[in-house]
């Protein structure tokens, strides 16, 4: 089920990127796609009936889901954050340079 949710989220992100004209919405869509993929990655590691991969008083012996996707997701999230920050900074500059975030108006302004 989570697979399907994540894929539908990717679809929504793609839809947003394709249909919107506002660059900020593009960035949000990109973040959405990132998140969806992260969700997907985490869910590939899930195993029915198993626990979070931490040795503790409650789970002293290994009966864990796959921890590797979780580790990968941690990395992927941080990378996503970095890209998002860069994009946001560029948006500020675009706004400053063109006075708008609308794709068509920027295109007109470029000429």
């Amino acid at each position, binding site marked *: 089920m989570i697979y399907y949710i994540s*894929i539908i989220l990717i*679809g929504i992100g793609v839809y947003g990127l394709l*249909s919107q004209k506002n660059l900020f919405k593009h960035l949000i869509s990109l973040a959405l796609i990132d998140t969806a993929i992260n969700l997907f990655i985490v869910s590939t590691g*899930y195993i029915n009936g198993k626990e979070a991969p931490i040795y503790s008083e409650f789970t*002293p012996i*290994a009966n864990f889901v796959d*921890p*590797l996707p*979780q*580790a990968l997701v941690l990395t992927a999230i941080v990378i996503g954050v970095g890209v998002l920050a860069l994009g946001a900074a560029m948006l500020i500059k675009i706004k400053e340079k063109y006075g708008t975030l609308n794709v068509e108006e920027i295109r007109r302004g470029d000429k």
Partner: protein
Amino acid sequence: MRRFLSALIALGLIIILLEFLNLIPDFGNVDLSKRVSNSFINKSVDGNNETIEFKKSKDLEDGSANVVTSIVVNYRSFDTLGEVTVLFTAALGVGLILKGLRRKRFYREPNFILKTANGILLPLIFLFGAYIFIHGHLTPGGGFPGGTIIAAGILVLYLSNEKFELSHRAKILESGMGTVYVLFGLVGLILSGIFLRNFLPTGVIGELFSAGIVPLIYVAIGFKVGAELSNLISEFQKEGQQ
């Protein structure tokens, strides 16, 4: 029209990805023994065959109770170094891109509640963040969430204080902690000839002082991420000349 076409294409994409799903095991139905992470859980990459028990197993190849942490900071530590670098690059880039902009001002007195609560909450937030990254090898969390929480504290500071400016020391902290991470790796290289080698004893699994360099690196990461995100926040507090 545009929306319809977009929806159509997005639908096509969804269908393709659904098709791909048929090729992989169903959700929650994974055979762990075929994956490398099985060895990560049992900490048997180097050939350990004993079952691991919490607070009993000693001197394992990797001593952190949180397996995700052991992967992030030990087995695949190199990825994490790269990850830190991406964040570092992003922070640097934001600084370069937004160079020359002024601090944004709202010209409005911050809310009284916010100001007061800030004084009480801020130490708690920082403390919580520090707790998270210090216990990264034992509990869920680690350097990244911990650092983020600290940065959230900085954000509160920015919101509640119009005149607050992040000190230049944040940059130094960021740079220094990155350096520490690489130096840990280099020390491993010098001591054992292997980059990012865990050269400290791993101790008993589940104890605070265990897992060798893992908590140390996580502390460094915690500070680094905190400083970096705080820097990002302070950069985004800017606006163009008007």
